[in-house]
């Protein structure tokens, strides 16, 4: 387990910035109440740590504790954001949704009849869209939400909002990248390294 290098940090941030707006800053400044007792103890900040090829978003105190575990024995800690491929690209996992969703810049709300098709791994078709953010460009990362604002996954837009208006109801609006159904479908491989 180690902190990220500057190139790794850059690739990670560019990926995250696909989905989030300016509020990505909050990821760095977010603090958790300190675990150690005492009023004047400093609040914990969150840090990024890489273990094998996976990137975790962890409380710093937890990351410090984890240094006492050998690299081979350390399976996971904090929230897994995704993994670096062998070519140096970064791939987001569904586990990053909890970190991304509060800071999402563009969102697509899916109607109740479209939830199940999406959770089974389908793309979002126009007929299932309840509403969407205005002025979304083409191929832009979006967070897919249910109508009651529960994040269901994320994807990229197939068309810009203006073009999507003219699309027929069966036309794909958003390409799925990850959905919460993966917690069941990819249960075997999601947390293995």
């Amino acid at each position, binding site marked *: 387990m180690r902190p990220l290098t500057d190139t790794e940090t850059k690739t990670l*941030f560019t990926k995250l910035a696909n989905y989030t707006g300016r509020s990505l800053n909050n990821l760095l400044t977010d603090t958790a109440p300190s675990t150690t007792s005492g009023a004047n103890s400093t609040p914990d*900040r969150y840090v990024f740590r890489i273990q094998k090829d996976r990137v975790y978003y962890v409380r710093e105190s937890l990351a410090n504790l984890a240094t006492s575990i050998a690299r081979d024995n350390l399976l996971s800690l904090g929230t897994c954001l995704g993994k670096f491929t062998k070519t140096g690209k970064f791939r987001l996992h569904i586990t990053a949704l909890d970190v991304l969703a509060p800071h999402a810049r563009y969102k697509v709300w899916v109607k109740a009849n479209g939830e199940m098709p999406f959770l089974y791994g389908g793309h979002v078709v126009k007929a299932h869209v309840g509403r969407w953010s205005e002025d979304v460009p083409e191929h832009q990362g979006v967070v897919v939400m249910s109508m009651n604002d529960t994040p269901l996954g994320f994807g990229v837009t197939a068309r*810009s909002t*203006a073009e999507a208006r003219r699309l027929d109801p069966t036309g794909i609006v958003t390409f799925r990248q990850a959905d919460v159904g993966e917690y069941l479908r990819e249960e075997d491989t999601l947390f293995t390294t």
Partner: protein
Amino acid sequence: MPPKARTGPSKGGDKRSSSSKPSTSASSSKSKKPSGPRPKPVQQKTKSKTPTLKKKPPHLRYTEKDLKLPSLNGIRPAGVQKPPNAKKGKTFVDDKEQMNAILAIVMAEKEGNIESKMMRSRQLEEVREARRIEAEKRVESKKAGLEERKKGIKEDGRKKGKGSRDDSGPAGAEVTQEKVGPRKLRKRVSFG
């Protein structure tokens, strides 16, 4: 230490000389020798002083600036990327300032990208709209032309009908026959 070492051999030399020349006319030399050692320490002192000066390492005696040497060419050769005392391996980013700096760069890049994408899509939309309007106009004008032509033909038909109502049937039949005739001729094809 060095002075003692130097004095030793000299003494030894004295001893050897005394031992090697035990007999014959050496009495005068022997007698002289005791008096000899006295000047020798003076010489040794002078000798011992010079080596101590020389032993001082050059970087203590003078600095590089004192030498007034021409400065070397500072260009780093292509094969050597890093200075030899630079840190080896990865450079980690763990402090907030550095992270923020990277984030700011990334965000600016992304904003620019989105902005340009939006601009391009807006422009394309305008162009498409203009093209659509033009196409609609063209269709309209075509339709209008067709309507006019239809009207003209209708009017022509009326005029003709009014002019020759009584022999309209046979004339029409002739026309059809004429039309059929050349078509049939045209269709007839023989391959050798």
